[in-house]
């Protein structure tokens, strides 16, 4: 691994002060992604600012009936937190669909949001990658692109965001709280992650001098009719080819409210207002689900090795909405898809 300096932040203000003073520094919390990338020579910070001891590790109820999750709450603690399990089971399910028990014990909430793509070419410093070296081009477009995006791609990048947790947070319309030199600001989850465009080196709209301090969930948890369905090459411990977070509020057979977010298909968790609008007010039927899936995928574009994802995503959306309607969410231990 490269050499670097190591310092500990004493509080959030000190962390912001330290990152503002050194543009080549990086925060470290769980370290599960950053240390790996440093071993691969992809990330080369001159200094690591350890924020892991800051008091951002609580889950608290908000006055409007939601929950405020500290940025340093470990993924496993969040998934098993009683209030998450009861009120936001789709989030718990998505977290438990990702990584391994050891990694979930280490990885933080904020770090999960900021993890980088697992595109092979991003990791391989011998190949061009515009995310790693802006302007150098995308090797994946004409390379091994089985894992890559089918929506929102650009000529500069077809990488996917690897998180499962973020797909559920997108569907739940969470808010990300960050602190920078100018103070605190709130970022709607839909505005947090970016599409690659011609600046794929920027994964998120977090500014270089800002730190994520919390993620807030609104009161609406969809705890009755939800699922997180993840399709992957192995039954466990693999990134999604396609994943679907589906959440419904039903009045009898009719869909009152619908949320639909996909993972593994784009540079950010993918939501489409027109697909959700096509569900709202309709009967919860296979025809309705298929219409929503077609709308969500209308601009999908496959590459040499991943065109199968378009059909896979369509079927996964229909299946996930069926599971959500029936109130039979996908189990994350028994992988039979019901």
């Amino acid at each position, binding site marked *: 691994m490269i050499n670097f300096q*190591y310092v500990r932040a004493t509080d959030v203000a000190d962390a912001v002060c330290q990152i503002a003073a050194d543009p080549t520094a990086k925060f*470290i919390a769980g370290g599960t992604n950053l240390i*790996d990338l440093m071993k691969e020579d992809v990330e080369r910070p001159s200094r690591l600012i*350890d924020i892991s001891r800051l008091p951002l590790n609580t889950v608290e109820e908000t006055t409007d009936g939601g929950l405020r999750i500290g940025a340093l709450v470990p993924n*496993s603690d969040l998934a098993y937190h009683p209030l998450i399990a009861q009120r936001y089971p789709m989030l718990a399910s998505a977290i438990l669909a990702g990584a391994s*028990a050891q990694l979930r*014990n*280490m990885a933080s909430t904020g770090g999960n949001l900021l993890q980088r793509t697992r595109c092979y070419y991003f990791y391989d410093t011998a190949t061009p990658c515009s995310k790693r070296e802006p302007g150098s081009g995308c090797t994946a477009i004409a390379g091994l692109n089985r894992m890559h995006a089918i929506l929102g791609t650009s000529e500069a990048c077809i990488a996917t965001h690897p998180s499962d947790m973020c797909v559920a947070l997108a569907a739940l319309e969470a808010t990300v709280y960050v602190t920078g030199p100018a103070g605190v600001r709130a970022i709607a989850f839909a505005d947090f992650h970016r599409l690659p465009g011609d600046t794929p080196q920027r994964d998120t709209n977090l500014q270089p001098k800002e730190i994520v301090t919390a993620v807030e969930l609104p009161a609406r948890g969809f705890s009755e009719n939800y699922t997180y369905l993840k399709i992957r090459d192995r039954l466990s411990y693999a990134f999604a080819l396609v994943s679907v977070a589906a959440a419904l509020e039903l009045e009898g057979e009719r869909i009152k409210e619908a949320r639909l977010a996909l993972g593994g298909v784009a540079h950010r968790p993918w939501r489409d207002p027109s697909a959700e609008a096509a569900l709202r007010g309709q009967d919860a039927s296979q025809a309705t689900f298929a219409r929503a899936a077609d709308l969500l995928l209308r601009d999908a574009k496959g590459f040499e090795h991943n065109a199968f994802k378009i059909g896979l995503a369509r079927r996964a959306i229909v299946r996930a909405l069926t599971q959500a309607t029936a109130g039979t969410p996908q189990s994350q231990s028994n992988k039979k898809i019901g």
Partner: protein
Amino acid sequence: MARASTTARPTVPAPGRIPVALTINGVATQLEVAPWTTLLDALRDHLDLTGTKKGCDHGQCGACTVLVDGRRINSCLTLAVMKDGAKVTTIEGLATNGALHALQQAFIDHDAFQCGYCTPGQICSAAGLIAEGKAKSPDEIRELMSGNICRCGAYPNIVAAIQQAMGQS
């Protein structure tokens, strides 16, 4: 092997500048490491605790699993300096007074390994799994042990061994 929990290990000189205090298998340990030293390398190269294995060194295989403050983690993706003050349990610390830990005995009883390279990580991970108390069924054990790869394919016996130890805890 078990180490007596009352004797302090002498300070281990090492390249680098940052002092780190760890309680490893009950033994208060002081060392000085460079910031880029992982907990895995600190254990193996600085403290000669080579029971914890380096497999992939990227958090993908689980061979480096240890317990830090009672939680199972990948020691290859952890900087030693970040764990200053922590309690670390490695495979060397599971037996007590020369008696094997229930998981160690169960792995022998069920022939839950072939080459054995993944075994220290499997056993530490299983100890963490049992402490977490989330896995009951074989499906749940398999899922929550998926961070530990066994390339010999001893998985059915590993699950059986964990079930046996779980029944005793």
